[in-house]
């Protein structure tokens, strides 16, 4: 007798699989270290991220014991800016993904539970959203705005990214809303809200978790791209994207300005992606001997 362990929905089993997967462990450790670094940034950073230390003598100083990642064209300490910018980049990405998940899950649940007409309408809206390249959509929206405070950037990033999540959740809801155990809950007199939260949503949670982990990586890159273009996080507030942008002009003479934040960006995105893949594997159904 075998049983499918994912189908058990037993989170202990999933945690156990993650703990025994070396890739996920490494990715988790890297990510935890980076998060700890940027959170503790204000305590660790040797200088203030906005401070122009010595505009006459310290412009583009190469990495040294005093300035581990060198200084930029305004004589600011790059390490301090990377730590501070990391807070911004990670906070923007995770908040935007939270909005994505919230809107996507609600939209998907509603669409999955709705009748034919409303479901079709809601999914055509999703199709429309998915049919426009996200970068173009973002460029158009952000370029149209006179100024882009960080909260608005988060909102715009979140509201352009939920379409995939909505479709994912709707699909999961459709596949199990006719399942016997869902019928049993209806026969018990469960309200639609109870059905959605207790029986349908938990089924969709695994795939949503995987998708949103991977989405964090995407949004970090997106935000960096937008900031590099100058329409994301606005200077002098640092983010990894605009620090890379600042250094771009001097990439030949002072490569350290871009390389420091670039390295952090790549490391975090790789770690997030690896963790997402690990989660996907851990959540995949597989046959286990019956316990």
């Amino acid at each position, binding site marked *: 007798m075998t049983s499918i362990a994912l*189908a*058990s*929905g037993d989170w202990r089993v999933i945690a156990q699989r993650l703990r025994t997967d070396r890739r996920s462990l490494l990715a988790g450790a890297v990510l935890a270290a980076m998060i700890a670094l940027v959170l503790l940034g204000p305590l660790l950073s040797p200088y203030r991220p906005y401070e122009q230390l010595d505009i006459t003598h310290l412009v583009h100083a190469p990495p040294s014991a005093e300035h581990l990642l060198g200084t930029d064209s305004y004589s600011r300490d790059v390490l301090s800016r990377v730590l501070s910018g990391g807070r911004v980049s990670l906070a923007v990405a995770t908040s935007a993904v939270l909005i994505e998940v919230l809107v996507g899950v609600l939209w998907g649940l509603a669409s999955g539970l709705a009748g034919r007409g409303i479901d079709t309408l809601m999914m055509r809206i999703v199709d429309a959203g998915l049919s426009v390249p996200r970068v173009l959509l973002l460029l158009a929206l952000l370029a149209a705005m006179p100024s882009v405070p960080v909260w608005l950037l988060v909102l715009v990033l979140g509201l352009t990214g939920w379409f995939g999540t909505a479709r994912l959740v709707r699909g999961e809801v459709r596949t199990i809303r006719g399942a016997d155990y869902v019928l049993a809950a209806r026969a018990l007199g469960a309200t639609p809200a109870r059905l959605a939260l*207790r029986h349908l949503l938990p089924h969709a949670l695994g795939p949503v978790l995987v998708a949103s982990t991977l989405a964090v990586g995407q949004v970090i890159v997106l935000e960096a791209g937008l900031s590099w273009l100058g329409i994301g996080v606005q200077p002098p507030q640092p983010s990894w994207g605009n620090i890379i942008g600042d250094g771009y002009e001097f990439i030949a003479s002072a490569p350290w300005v871009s390389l420091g934040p670039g390295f952090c960006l790549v490391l975090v995105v790789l770690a997030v992606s690896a963790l997402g893949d690990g989660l996907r594997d851990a959540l995949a159904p597989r046959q286990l001997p019956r316990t």
Partner: protein
Amino acid sequence: MSAPLLSVRGLSKDFPIRGGILNRVQGSVRAVTDVSFDVAAGETLAVVGESGCGKTTTGRCILRLVEPTAGEITFDGVDLRTLRGAELRRMRQHIQLVFQDPYASLNPRMTIGDTVKEGLIIHRLADGAAADKRVQSLLDEVGLRPEWTKRYPHEFSGGQRQRVGIARALAVEPKFIVLDEPVSALDVSVQAQVINLLQDLQRDRGLTYLFIAHDLGVVEHLATRVAVMYLGRIVELTTAETLFASPIMPYTQALLSAIPLPDPLAPRDRIVLEGDPPSPANPPSGCVFHPRCFHPGKDVACTQAVPPLEEKAPGHWAACIKQPAGTTDFFLPAAALRSRRAAVSPAT
């Protein structure tokens, strides 16, 4: 007989068939056609028939899990079809369902304790420690260990899961339970245990059952009365005893002759029906059974008029125009049945 607990009149259910580029409705399948029956408090009405005859749909219409196309369903004096929203959810406490498939019917992400507890919470019958205690006593009542509440469905066998499904239904103290082939997916030895459990529960709690089955052997043991369905219609309805002793309908006779005998060497006359059950999307005219019927009196009239379900003998309804009312004189190739009964109980 006093007023029945459940009364079904003229129940029909059509499922639309969609197709084509525009996904338009192109036709319909008549899953259930003009079904009427009563169930008295405390009895077990069995509904039998082959796959696709509409027995499961009938059960789900009673529970309003499937919206009937037409007909009346009266439960305990209340017209179920008029109930909406919260009223309907309150009524659900009184009518419960046990499923055929013990694997699909339990939420794999919930412990069995939470599954059984859900009804208690929905209907505010108990909460906190009192609810946990109720769950434990329910598990005990269906023959499971009370300390298993924290376990997940995948940790149990099919028979044990079916007991969890029964405990879930019992939790809300229903009067009426639709048992939708509750033992068909189980091993024969486990079937007997679950059947005995269902009988004990009926006795102890005064439950009324609608027992859907395709296995007449199980029905004979459990049912008070039996309704035989064919292609969405009830074709014969009587007490279990009468049905097994003197079935009127040729279809019922064929079903009875198909019951396996414990003795493989016993002589038997199987009635083997010709052909397949017709498609419910395109049912035959007149008596839906006429293409497969072996009644010697079968003639062109059978292909024209839909036979009404008539009381041919007291308490014995059948839908056959070749069977005159008021007689118990059947054409019957009864040898088939006699040989079966002789093999089952040589004394009679």
